[in-house]
């Protein structure tokens, strides 16, 4: 029968078309399904088209033969088919038997004709969607055939802000910042402070060439009247005096802690001082009581 021959031919070309993509012909276990076909329904659709009739008029029986032949051919070439192709083959074999064997009376199962119609419907539906997608893609599409404004003029937006705040926010802000401020900002009154430099200049000026041990306060009398200045003046003067002793410009002595501090102009000539002059001078005060 030429029909069968044609079927075989189609199946062979199908398989070889697939197999060509697998160059290692001698290799077993070539995978067929993936490339080229979108599953068994796709294969069936290709086969159905080969019948060259309106898909509503295809012979499902012939199609079944073709598919089974396709699977057989694939197996002969030892191509490994994915499971769903085999499931379809099994289902089609079942369909074929239902089509060939007369329908049992009062059977619950669908008749071969119903099954065939269902298959035909699925094929038609798939083909319809394929056509639809092609038609869709052939439309004049935005950005390909049809274009929107190339230089759109943006709508300028006036952003007007509506500010929101509650009275509570304002009061909260006021109270918390006033409070924060009243606690953290301790106003320290600016004090009259004698810098070391000040003290040093005054000492040099006043002690001058006074060679007699003189209480340091005497030199500072004028500056110690103001009680606010007193502590600062004393501290700075004492520090400055030590500095001057170290430099060999002053001698200093104190008999005991909290006793009066005496100073006088240095009795040594400048230049014979060592680096530790200050320390020596301090030691000297003990050996040289008033």
């Amino acid at each position, binding site marked *: 029968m030429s029909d069968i021959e044609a079927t075989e031919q189609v199946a062979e070309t199908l398989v070889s078309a697939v197999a060509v993509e697998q160059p290692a012909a001698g290799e077993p276990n070539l995978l067929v399904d993936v490339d080229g076909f*979108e*599953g*068994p*329904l*796709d294969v069936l659709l290709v086969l159905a088209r080969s019948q060259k009739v309106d898909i509503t008029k295809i012979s499902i029986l012939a199609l079944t033969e073709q598919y089974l032949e396709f699977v057989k051919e694939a197996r002969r070439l030892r191509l490994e088919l994915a499971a*769903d192709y085999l499931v379809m083959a099994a289902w089609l074999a079942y369909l074929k038997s239902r089509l060939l064997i007369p329908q049992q009376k009062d059977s619950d199962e669908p008749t071969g004709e119903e099954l065939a*119609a*269902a298959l035909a*419907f*699925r094929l*038609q*539906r*798939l083909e*319809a*969607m*394929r*056509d*639809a*997608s*092609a*038609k*869709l*893609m052939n*439309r*004049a*599409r*935005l*950005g*390909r*055939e*049809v*274009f*929107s*404004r*190339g230089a*759109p*003029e*943006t*709508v300028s937006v006036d952003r007007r802000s509506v500010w929101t705040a509650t009275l509570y926010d304002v009061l909260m802000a006021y109270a918390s910042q006033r409070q924060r401020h009243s606690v953290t900002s301790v106003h320290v009154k600016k004090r009259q402070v004698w810098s070391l430099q000040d003290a040093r200049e005054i000492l040099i000026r006043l002690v001058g060439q006074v060679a007699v041990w003189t209480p340091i306060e005497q030199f500072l009398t004028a500056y110690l009247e103001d009680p606010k200045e007193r502590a600062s003046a004393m501290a700075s003067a004492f520090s400055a005096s030590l500095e001057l002793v170290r430099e060999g410009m002053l001698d200093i002595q104190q008999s005991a802690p909290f006793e009066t501090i005496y100073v006088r102009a240095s009795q040594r000539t400048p230049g014979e001082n060592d680096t530790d002059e200050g320390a020596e001078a301090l030691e000297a005060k003990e050996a040289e009581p008033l």
Partner: protein
Amino acid sequence: MKKPPDLLEAPAADEVNEASEVGEILETERMVEALIFASAEPLSFAELSKRIPGDRDIRGALNRLRAHYRKRGVQLRSSEDRWSFRTAADLSFILHREAVEQRRLSRAALETLAIIAFHQPVTRAEIEDIRGVSTSKGTLDVLLETGWVRMRGRRRTPGRPVTYGTTFDFLDHFGLETIKDLPGLEELKGAGLLDSAIPASFHVPAPDDGIDLTEDEDPLDESEMFATGALEEDAGEK
């Protein structure tokens, strides 16, 4: 020689009215034209109404403008009552330089897009049923990425599968006024090929890309609304 006053004045008054009416009609047309022309994106009728001051016949202006531009190089189009100027399709041959490289969709993606367009709202399982193969994860993601396809909701069936549908961008891209203008829709409907069940059923559904969910759809969860891919759905399959 002097005409009686009633004969003289009556037409004059009419003329003034008419002139100002014509003026307003023309002005409305100009405004609609300017607003739509300025924008690259389609403008909805609602937006137009909001932006055009006063109470004017915007619908009439749109219709007149559409007619006016019908034969020109630029045309006034609408999709779902959103209006845009687009170049005439027959002039594409001189405009190819403006074309931006677009990602080519695989055959599987094209088929899936058509199935979603014609069968929406449709679940992944239904798409697979029509195609006869399982849909690879990437296919739906790619379609979602194009902005032509969206996740609509969840079907009220066991497993609550996500339903897919097309977007406004889909209509705009393919130059469809409504989803009912899908090519070949009527024939397919007539042939019962949009029926999700096997032919015996008499129920012939039409694609529905409406914002509102159909009665067998549930809304997506909040987090899913902003998901870019079909990730939620796929996550369960792993």
